[in-house]
């Protein structure tokens, strides 16, 4: 244990995803040794993102205004929605340039172990978006792991009465993985070869 605020810093850093106690300590001492101007720039950018960046009121993607860049783009196809778990997945899909519709960011996947059920995800918001009949196709691009698959099956069952075309990204993505880490070519192919989902 270190003195007061140094330990506070280590504790705060340790709460970040993927940062264990050892890394938290390393980062803390790196910050302590760094030039004050460098650290202030980091502090400033943290303050700024928290003040400026919000979540798009339509799709839940990160946005610098009410709506995100994709939702503001009038050339996007309003009849197709691609459902992903996290904003970082939007970035991954955009990189492939295969998809011209809009997104819906759920904010995670169903995982009872972590106490995450459909009510903890932006499922109701999705149903609201689908209500007026503009959207005719849903692409479920949740992660290719158990929880992502379960979430996709869940959504497919939920929207079944609406008669939409529902598809799941084709296999070929590394199983047990994370959409974010699939390379562009693989992910692009998965989009082209998406299969319709029977439930």
């Amino acid at each position, binding site marked *: 244990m270190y003195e007061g605020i140094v330990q506070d810093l280590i504790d705060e850093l340790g709460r970040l995803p993927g940062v264990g106690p050892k890394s938290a300590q390393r980062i803390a001492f790196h910050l302590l040794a760094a030039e004050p101007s460098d650290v202030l720039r980091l502090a400033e950018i943290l303050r700024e993102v928290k003040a400026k960046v919000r979540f798009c009121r339509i799709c839940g993607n990160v946005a610098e205004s009410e709506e995100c860049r994709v939702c503001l783009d009038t050339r996007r196809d309003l009849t197709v929605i691609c459902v992903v778990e996290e904003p970082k997945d939007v970035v991954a899909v955009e990189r492939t340039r295969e998809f011209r519709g809009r997104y819906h960011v759920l904010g995670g996947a169903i995982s*009872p*172990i972590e106490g995450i*059920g*459909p009510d903890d995800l932006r499922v109701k918001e999705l149903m609201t978006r689908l209500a007026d009949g503009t959207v005719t196709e849903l692409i479920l691009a949740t992660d290719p792991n158990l929880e992502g698959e*379960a979430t996709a099956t*869940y959504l497919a069952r*939920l929207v079944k009465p609406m008669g939409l075309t529902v598809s799941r990204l084709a296999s070929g993505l590394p199983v*047990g993985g994370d959409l974010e880490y699939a390379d562009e070519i693989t992910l692009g192919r998965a989009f082209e070869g998406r299969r319709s989902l029977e439930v």
Partner: protein
Amino acid sequence: MYVAALELVDFRSYSHVQIDLRPGVSVLVGRNGQGKTNVVEAIGYLATLGSHRVAADQPLVRHEAERSVIRAAVEREGRRLLLEIEIVPGKSNRARINKSQLPRPRELLGVLRTVMFAPEDLTLVRGDPDSRRGFLDELMMLRTPRLAGVKADYERTLKQRNALLKSAAATRGSFDVTTLAVWNDHLVQLGSELVHERLMLVSDLCAPVRQAYADLAPASGEAELGYKASWTNAAPLADQLSRDQIAAEFRESLARVERDELQRGVTLAGPHRDDLLLRLGDHPAKGYASHGESWSMVLALRLASFALLRMDGDDPVLILDDVFAELDSTRRERLAEMVVDAEQVLVTAAVADDIPATLSGDRFTVEAGQVLSDPAADRGDA
């Protein structure tokens, strides 16, 4: 296949040890507690990614150390492979083949194949169903490594489903019906594949088990295997059951037990509650078999595993950890005859005289964290 060299770092009682091995029989002799089992346990771990003695990894790491490394050169179909696993309790283990890291340790399964005979095996007859399921699944994964993924997914799905049932139990039955239906789908899909594979394995094992048991204990009744499913009353189960039939039955039984499950917060039907039935003559082995008969049954299961793996074209490495001390002289001799022609046999014993003369070969003395090759007993062909 055979293990040509083994190196252990901070594994069990060893801080560092290196052993060169040859095909044929190698015998490790030493007083109790000197580290004989530790050596063969390490080889078994490389093959199955688990210890035959403990479920957790922590006891495998030497006191005071943070991680263990098991490294082995394996000669397989004329090719030499360097296998390595780093055991880091509490974190994910790392596996390498020829120095390149595998995406996950699971991919090491099936590269080195072993069949281990050990005193702990008696629990196969006497113990709970989980040890018998473990026997089937381990063998299944050695034969078809892909199934390790199916099993891991099944277990994860089971955990998710149990968590959902538990929260439903806690809130007195208020739960999302669709979410449960989704986990049911996945549980049935993965579970039916697992059961289907187990049934085929049991069917493949029947004849070799019967044969091995008859060879070991000619005077006693016939050994029979069966599969007891938790999700149907039909028993014994026919191996011709298709995956779809299994899935349909499994799904129906989940519907039958749902009310109970929602109260108790656990999944009550599925391959995680099935059992392998072992019978001798007209009786189940458990509760009826004598000590000697139980041992013959256990040996028959292991010998049958050896026979099945051998049919794939490459002998698995046989490991006999301290089993001769458990057997009378007739069974000792018979067992020795049945394994002696395997490509590699590793034997441990506290008392050298317990090992039948049939199994003479290279000799190692294990003493206080050292494994020394014993030149006096070396085979003449060195």
